[in-house]
């Protein structure tokens, strides 16, 4: 049995909100407030689609380092989301909410979230969980091409969630994250874009104020190198460099859009500024695998996976290694999965099988998983408004504990 149709599933990410009803379409709304350069126009959420001039666009997010701190922005964004979904009323009586939160959210932030959900929006009940916990409910059996007779293997999943604010490695068992194995790398899409912005500004054009544009450039041109030495040598070639890519910068005054161009001659004729990118294309995502390149005292994703699996006995670790799911925006970079598997294969014990799955839509995979959550799990773990009013925040801990105990039946 699946969730009732009036359950609202909200993946509250720092970059986009993914919201919708189960088995329906997922709505993606940028989770920020943008202001134009001259300060005249404010764009909330998806109003950015009517914006013509992205130069020096200023952002204001409700999230700080991945956790919600600014509720006035977030409430207005949620208002917009609910309107887009067709809900006209301000109060959400009659709806339940499935909400995602970041790992180890601070109790005071959890309290604020719960109060807003129950006392302001007046949802009937609330189910919180990590996005990784929802990923596991997807149909992973067909993803890993397992035969049905093998039983419920998918109860053990290692989720790599690499998003805007940070990257988490989260082992999930039976829909509950194993806290002792959660590891965080403070590298996310925002860091990569800022890094790319800095090196472009030093070597080519000053784009320090154009976060939006550099984000687009990153998504259009960056890829993960499989062999850094080889790509570096190739990138140094002056003529017929296979790694060189040209990006025509947009001209906001004339309304011309930017984009990747194949040859510079056509763009020259149109008098567009051309940005040539070569080593920057693969050095930026290289940070995910080697943060020490920039002086960060943290390990890359494959090494952190091994650190996380140290907490578990050998056979459990081997189970996790065979069921890895990659979600989040950063995993969509071309070549990420191959490079990740190759590096992890070198680090993992030789007796373990390393198998990973990259879903077609890595950004909405957690949202889709939440929609496939079984009804019993949802009912056991959700807290109603009445229960919260009576018992306070403790009831969340009790429900999570009962989920953990019940899952082993």
């Amino acid at each position, binding site marked *: 049995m699946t969730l009732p149709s009036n359950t609202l599933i909200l993946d509250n990410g720092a970059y986009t909100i993914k919201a919708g009803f189960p088995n329906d379409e997922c709505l993606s709304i940028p989770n920020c407030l943008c202001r134009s350069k001259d300060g005249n126009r404010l764009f909330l959420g998806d109003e950015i689609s009517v914006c013509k001039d992205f130069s020096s666009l200023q*952002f204001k997010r409700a999230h*700080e380092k991945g*956790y919600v701190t600014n509720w*006035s922005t977030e409430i207005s964004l949620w208002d917009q989301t609910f309107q887009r979904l067709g809900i006209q009323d301000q109060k959400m009586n009659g709806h339940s909410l499935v909400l995602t939160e970041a790992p180890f959210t601070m109790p005071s932030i959890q309290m604020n979230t719960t109060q807003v959900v129950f*006392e302001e929006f007046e949802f009937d009940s609330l189910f919180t969980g990590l996005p990784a916990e929802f990923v596991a409910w997807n149909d992973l059996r067909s993803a890993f091409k397992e035969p049905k007779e093998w039983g419920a293997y998918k109860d053990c999943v290692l989720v790599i969630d690499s998003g805007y604010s940070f990257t988490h490695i989260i082992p999930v068992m039976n829909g509950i994250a194993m806290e002792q194995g959660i590891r965080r790398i403070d590298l996310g899409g925002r860091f990569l874009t800022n890094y790319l912005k800095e090196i472009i500004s030093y070597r080519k054009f000053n784009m320090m104020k154009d976060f939006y544009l550099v984000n687009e450039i990153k998504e259009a041109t960056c890829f993960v190198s499989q062999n850094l030495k080889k790509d570096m040598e190739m990138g140094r070639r002056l003529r017929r460099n296979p790694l060189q890519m040209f990006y025509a910068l947009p001209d906001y005054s004339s309304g011309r859009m930017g984009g990747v161009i194949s040859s510079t001659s056509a763009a020259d004729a149109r008098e567009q500024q051309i940005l040539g990118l070569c080593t920057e294309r693969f050095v930026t995502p290289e940070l995910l695998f080697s943060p020490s390149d*920039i*002086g960060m005292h943290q390990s890359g994703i494959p090494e952190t996976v091994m650190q996380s699996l140290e907490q578990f006995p050998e056979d459990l670790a081997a189970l996790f290694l065979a069921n890895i799911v990659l979600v989040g925006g950063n995993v969509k970079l071309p070549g990420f999965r191959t490079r990740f598997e190759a590096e992890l294969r070198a680090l993992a014990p030789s007796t373990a099988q390393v198998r990973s799955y990259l879903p077609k839509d890595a950004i909405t995979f957690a949202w889709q998983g939440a929609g496939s959550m079984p009804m019993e799990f949802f009912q056991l773990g959700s807290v109603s408004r009445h229960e919260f009013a009576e018992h306070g925040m403790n009831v969340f801990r009790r429900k999570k504990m009962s989920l953990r105990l019940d899952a082993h039946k």
Partner: protein
Amino acid sequence: MFVSAVASHVSKTKRTKQRTIVDEATRELHVRRNLAELEKEPSMELRFDVAKELLSHRSFPITIRRILTSKKTFVNYVDETPDNKYQNCVSRPSKRAPRRFCGVCGYWGVYACQNCGIGYCSKDCETVHLDTRCMKVYA
């Protein structure tokens, strides 16, 4: 008088300004500051908020009003949490040696600048580095 190439090079270096070598601790501090800069949300320090009209149709109960007007930052929230789970779950430093890249062109940084420690790959990149960035970032 014949001045050999070597002698003219030596006199050139004597004429350049005194090189101040920055110590390891300051370099580390600078690296950390740079990382904090990269981690920062763009334009987060600017003050602008949603238009008042968007929230005016809502009548907030007192608890929500307190949440909306609180000026707590993320650091405050972390500090007041009794356990250290958030800080402890961070990834450990890597066992691999850090690689160094040229700060100017992005190739391998085989040589390191005497003053600030940034890598460079060739003489040309060193000249560019000394002209533009060296020691200016410590100012």
